[in-house]
């Protein structure tokens, strides 16, 4: 299963774009997370790998932005297993092993669309990284 992030703008938010694509291509989409209001939003969905190309194309044709979410990486050298990330994770992708080490399940992780754990890591061991593996995101807090 592959993950894609669909972004819709203010005009597109009231259109049944995802439903149309599902019906037309008969492809199941699992919604992993959705943040939508009247101004637009983003939906993280999971689709079968072999359908990814045609689904991305179909969605883009309809004018929505489609991207592959960044993945969350944990630097095991920096992590000292305090565990402050554990209870924050909405999908229980982070847990403590029997020897109190922090364990990270990449399969369960929602990736950069969530990122709730990133700024809670005192060791700054958690980063959102582009899928190709380079260009790590600077997680420095924006000062406002």
């Amino acid at each position, binding site marked *: 299963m592959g993950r894609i992030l669909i972004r819709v703008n203010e005009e597109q938010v009231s259109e049944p774009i995802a439903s149309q694509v599902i019906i037309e291509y008969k492809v199941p989409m699992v919604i992993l997370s959705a943040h939508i209001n009247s101004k637009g939003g983003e939906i993280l969905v999971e689709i079968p790998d072999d359908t990814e190309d045609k689904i991305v194309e179909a969605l883009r044709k309809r004018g929505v932005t489609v991207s592959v979410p960044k993945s969350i990486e944990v630097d095991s050298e920096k992590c*000292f*297993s*305090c*565990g*402050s*990330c*554990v*209870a*924050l994770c909405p999908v229980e992708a982070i847990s*403590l092993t029997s*020897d*109190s*080490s922090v364990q990270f399940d990449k399969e369960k992780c929602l990736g950069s669309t969530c990122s*709730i754990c990133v*700024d*809670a890591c*005192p*060791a*700054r061991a958690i980063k959102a990284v582009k899928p190709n593996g380079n260009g790590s995101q600077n997680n*420095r*807090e924006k*000062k406002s």
Partner: protein
Amino acid sequence: MIYSRSAFSICIKGKATTLSNEGKTRTVEEINAKIRKGDAQVLTAEEMKKLVESSGVEVAFKEVDVVTTGTFGAMCSSGAVINLGHSDPPIKIDHAWINDVEVCHPGAAVDIFIGATNMSEKQPFEYGGGHVIGDLVAGKEVELRATAYGTDCYPRTQVKTTLTKDDLNQFCLLNFRNGYQRYNCAVNSSDETIYTYMSKLLPRFRNATYSGAGELNPLMNDPDYETMGMGTRIFLGGGQGYIIGEGTQHSPKNLSGTLMVKGDAKKMTPEYLQGAAFTKYGTSLYVGLGVPIPILNMGLAKKTAIRDSEIFTDIVDYSVPRRDRPKFGQVSYKELKSGSITINGKKVRVSSLSSLKMAKKVSQTLKSWIEEGTFTLTSPVERLPTSTVFKSMRQTEEIPFVVSVMHPAVTCTEDEEIRAIAERIVTKSVNHIVVVDATGKLRGIVTSWDITRAMAEGKKALSDIESRNVITAKPDEPLEVASKRLAQHNISALPVVDIERKVLGIVTSEDVAKLLGRRY
């Protein structure tokens, strides 16, 4: 000798007298003799609890000489004293920075104190004194900048150089409050995520955090401080250090004792001293600290068997920015370590901020040092006090709270016409009308600007123009906090509500300006 006898006599008072080991003691000297011969029986606190559970206190006392404890957590009141040596020509440092972190000059010319929470001027909130200490311990090169006013004996006014720990005369870790016996469990009852020294707290009790090693904590295993005090040799930052007295805010009666410690940071290891960054709070230092507890008497064998289920702490609401924050009952470290606790009947997931994995590693490493004979025990020359009281600050100036400036809100209900509301704005001469339901609970807010826009756009219904997502204030919040919220959301008034969202009044930016403007 004298010390251990007196400790024992205190401890057996009121205890059962049928135990066959009663009256028997061992001394620190006897234990050290065994350590030198390689005969000492050393257990980690974790192992001691299991032994007492399976074989009883009597057997544990007979068999065990030392119990090693450990903790590894963010300890903000940590720092390091360094001596740089003299430059040529010499400088009497006035201001100094290491890796852009301001360090202070509490003494003469070239002595400096690096505080763990001082933040980098270039990377605030991400890099600070804790990281400088960690980098130095790791052998990394750091950059020193310093300025001075220049004197006849110290003419130099500027210096810039790079340094490693090998270039320093002294590099002494000096932590004035470490190893808190237990700490609060933190939650957030408000509607917004808050960032605290207890880390990120999600709104409406969506998570909880706690700190401390519970049953592995040094002070928890010797709660009467029989064996600890000035001169107790300890594991500190991966090296050897000493307790030099009670830590600041030491509060033994509240089971919240603390330690002041020092040690040679040149001999410490980066694994046990790590800089940390807490988003929107600041920087700190994670410190590994372990204290060996000599099992001098049966009482200590029993005390070191304490379990997480017997150690309780308060659940505290960190969204209330006051000294005395509301509490939601107590919780045991056993529950905290289980990963979830119950608050008001609701399950809340809880995470630790300190590392249990590293705490265990501290106690295991200390155990191996004693077994190898590279670490011997000391008797304190003065025990930690057991009756110190932690007082609040004496304040000669009162600060204003929301309740002291708020005034009654002009309200309306959702079924009213815009015209009626417009009239009320004029007659009451206000800019904000708070929308309430029949029971007085907050529904929304309408401003004179919203009314003007409604007129211009020909809108008739209140529901088309009112703001539903209302930013509010609580009556017991400091006015400064409410004022920050006004600025943060770029708004001009906050309805003041109670915990059930019943409207108590309103505070406007004019109220704030009148009061704070006069003061600052």
